[in-house]
C-alpha cells in the first residue's frame, strides 16, 4: 500500500482513538452543535441555541411537497402536545425553496400544527443537519446540546421509536 494511503489509515485510527464524548460547555447551553437562525411563519426570528441546554429539541426537516412528511407532522404534533410541559420543543424546518414556500403555511394549518414552523428557503439549517436533503429528516438533541438520535424518512411506527427516545431524554 502506498504511503499516502497508510497515512490516511493512520489518521483514521487516530480519529477513532479520540472518538469519545468530550466535555460540554462553551457555547450557549454547553453545546457546540451548529447554530442557525430562521424566521417562523409569523416572521419571528428563532434561533436554535435559544433552546439548547434548556429543552429536548426535535428538529423535523420537512417540505410541503413531501407526502411522508405530511403523514408524520400530525404524529409530531401529538408528541409535542404530550411532552411540551416536560421540556420538549419541536421545530419544524420547512425545506421548501422559494417556488413552493407559499404552500407551507396552508400545509401546516391543515395538519393543525402548533409547534414553530421555520422557513429555510436558503438551506441554512438543512445544509448543517441534513446535507442529503432527506425529507422528512429528524434530529433529536438532548438537554446537554448533543445529538442523541437522527433518522431519515417516515414509516408508520417510527413515532413509537421516537417517543421512546424522547422519554429517555426528558
Amino acid at each position, binding site marked *: 500500500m502506498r504511503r*499516502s494511503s497508510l497515512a490516511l489509515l493512520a489518521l*483514521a485510527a487516530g480519529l*477513532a482513538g479520540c472518538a469519545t*464524548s*468530550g466535555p460540554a460547555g462553551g457555547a450557549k447551553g454547553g453545546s457546540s452543535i451548529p447554530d442557525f437562525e430562521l424566521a417562523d411563519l409569523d416572521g419571528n426570528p428563532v434561533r436554535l441555541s435559544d433552546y439548547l441546554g434548556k429543552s429536548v429539541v426535535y428538529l423535523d426537516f420537512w417540505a410541503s*411537497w413531501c407526502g411522508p412528511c405530511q403523514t408524520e407532522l400530525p404524529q409530531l404534533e401529538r408528541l409535542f402536545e404530550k411532552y411540551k410541559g416536560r421540556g420538549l420543543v419541536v421545530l419544524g424546518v420547512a425545506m421548501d425553496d422559494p417556488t413552493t414556500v407559499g404552500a407551507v403555511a396552508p400545509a401546516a394549518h391543515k395538519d393543525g400544527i402548533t409547534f414553530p414552523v421555520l422557513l429555510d428557503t*436558503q438551506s441554512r439549517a438543512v445544509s448543517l443537519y441534513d446535507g442529503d436533503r432527506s425529507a422528512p429528516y429528524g434530529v433529536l438533541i438532548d438537554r446537554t446540546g448533543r445529538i442523541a438520535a*437522527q433518522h431519515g424518512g417516515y414509516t*408508520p*411506527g417510527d413515532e413509537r421509536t421516537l417517543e421512546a427516545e424522547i422519554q429517555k431524554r426528558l
Partner: protein
Amino acid sequence: MRWWSAPLGALAIVMAVPALGLTTEIAGQPLTLTFSETADLAYHLDQGVVAPGPETPCHQGLPGFLSRPVRATPSAEYDPTGDCYADWLNRFDAQASWGRWHAELRFDSALFGNAPSVSNPNASAENLHLATLLENRYTNNLIVEKISASYLGDRLDLTLGDFYIAYGRGLVLSLTKIDALGVDTTLRGASVTGHFGGFSANVAAGVTNVVNTDESTGEVAPDPMDRIVAGRLEYRWPRVLTIGVDGAGIYQNPATAALSSYTPGQPVVQLPLAPLALGSVTSQPPQAIPGGLWNTDNGSVTLELPRLGDVGKLYLEYAHQVQWVGNELRPEGNAFYGSLSLFFGPATLLIEGKDYQNFSSPLPPSLSSQMFPAFWQQNVYTNAPTLEESFQEEYYPVYSIAGPRLRVDVAVTDWLTPYASAAYFADDTNGYDIADGFLGLDAHWQERRSHASLAAGRRIATFNGVSPTPGAAFQHEWWVQYDLVQVLGPVYSLELEGLHRRWDEDFFTGHPWTWSYGYLSLRRHEWSLTLGDEYYSQFPSFDRVENPNIGGSYSPTDRWTFRLFAGGRTAGLRCVNGICRNYPGFEGASVEVTARF
C-alpha cells in the same frame, strides 16, 4: 498522492470511528467534528436510448429481465455510450463547529470502470459520431466541491466560501439544491448579513459552483464561475409585516461561454473542472461566443403580511429585469407574483397569481447546451414560481405568461379532506393557453397512521391567438396520482404510490402516449422492500415499454443506511417546480451506502 486515496481514506475513517461525532475542547470551547460519507456504486447496463441498436456484448448471458430484446435495425441515433459501465460516485463531507463558527469541507469524486471509448475516432463516420457522444464523459476526478467557513453572531452573520442563496420567491436569485435533478449549485464567495433592530441587510458576491459530475450520464462539466453580486435590505415587524428590496446582477463568465465542442483529432485545450480539482474537460481552443454573453440585472420589492387578522397570509413581489444579450438590450422585463392564504375554520384557501412580461426565467449558466447537455438546463440562477404541479414540464424559459390559481381544501370530518384546484395561464411566449384543474382527497385513519391521498387532474394547453394555429391542441393531458399507506400492526406498513399520465393530444408526438410509474413497498422502521414499474409508450412506435425494478433500504443504526436498486427506470424530461432536465433511462443495479458520524 493518488487521486483515489481520498475516498479510500474517507471510507477507512468511516469504518474506524465508533461514535456519533468527535468532540474535543479548544480554548475552553467545545469543537465538534461530524462527517458524512456517501458512496454510490452502480453498474449501468443500458441507458435506454430512443433508437436502440443491436445488443452490446455486456448484455449477453444476462438474465432475461435485465436485457432488452435485440433490435435488428441499427440507427443513426444508435447510442451505446451509456451502456455497460460501472461508476463509483463518492461524497465525503466534514463539518466542524466551534462556538459561533462553523466550517465545511466536501470532497466529491468519481471513478469509472469499463467506460466505453473509441480508439480511432476518425476511422469512420460512426466512430466519429460515437466519439462525439463520449465528449467529456467518464473522466475520473476528485474535487473540493464545497468549502466554507461561517460565523453566526448576534448582529452579524458572515460566510466565506460556498453558500446557497435565494431572495423572495426566486424571481431575482435562487441558487439551491434539487436532489431529484442532481442539482447542487452554490455561490462561492462571501456573504455578509447585518441585523439592526428589525432591519437586516445582506450583501453577497461570488462565482457559481455546480456539481461537476452528472451521475446519470457520467458527463463532466466545469464550474461555470458566472459572477453574481446581490443584496437584500429587509425590515421585519414580527406578526405584522416584512418588507424587502432585492437586487442581483448575474453576469456570464466569458471563459466558460467560450468553451465549445471539439472534433476528435483536432487541436484541443484541457481546462480544470474546478479551482480545486483533479480532472479536466476538453474543449476547442477558445472560440467566439455565439450570440454573445447574457448579462442580467434583477431587482424586486417584496411585502409579506404574515397574519391578516389571524385568518391568513399575504405575499406580494414585483420584480424588474434588465438584460443584455451581447450588445443588444432586450425589452425590459417585469414580473409580479402574489399569494394569499386564508384559513376559515375547516377550510384552507390558497390563491396565487403571476404576471410575467418579457421576464427571462430560469436564467441559465454559461455552460453550452451542445457541449454539456446534462448540465445546462437545470443549473439555473433564478426560478420564478410556475404555480403548476411540481412534476409539470416546462419546455421553454418563461418570458411572458400570466394567470391565477386557486386551491381549496375543506376538512369535512376530522379524517377526510377533499380539495380542488383550478388554474388558467395565458402563455404569450409559446403561444398557448393552459387550463389546469384537479380534484383530490386526503383521508386518514388508525390515529392518522394510515392514510390515502388521491388526486386526478386534467391539463389542456391550446394554441392561442399569438400562434399561427389558434385553437389547435398543444398538449391535452390527464393524470392520476395516488399514495396509500396501510399500517400492518405496530411496526409494519404497506404503501402503494404512483402517477399515471396520459396525453391524448400532443403537438410533439402527434399521437397519444403514456408515462407512468407505480411502487409498492413493505416498510419497517429499519428497512423497506420496494417493487416498482415505470412504463411508457415509446416514441415513435408507441409500444408500451416496461421498466420493472426492485429496491430496498436498510438502516441498522442512525449512522448507516444501505440502499439497493436493480432493474429499470424510464428516460424522459423530469421536472421539479419548473426546473427540468432530460434524464437517460437506466437499466442495471446500484448500491448506495450513507454513513454519518
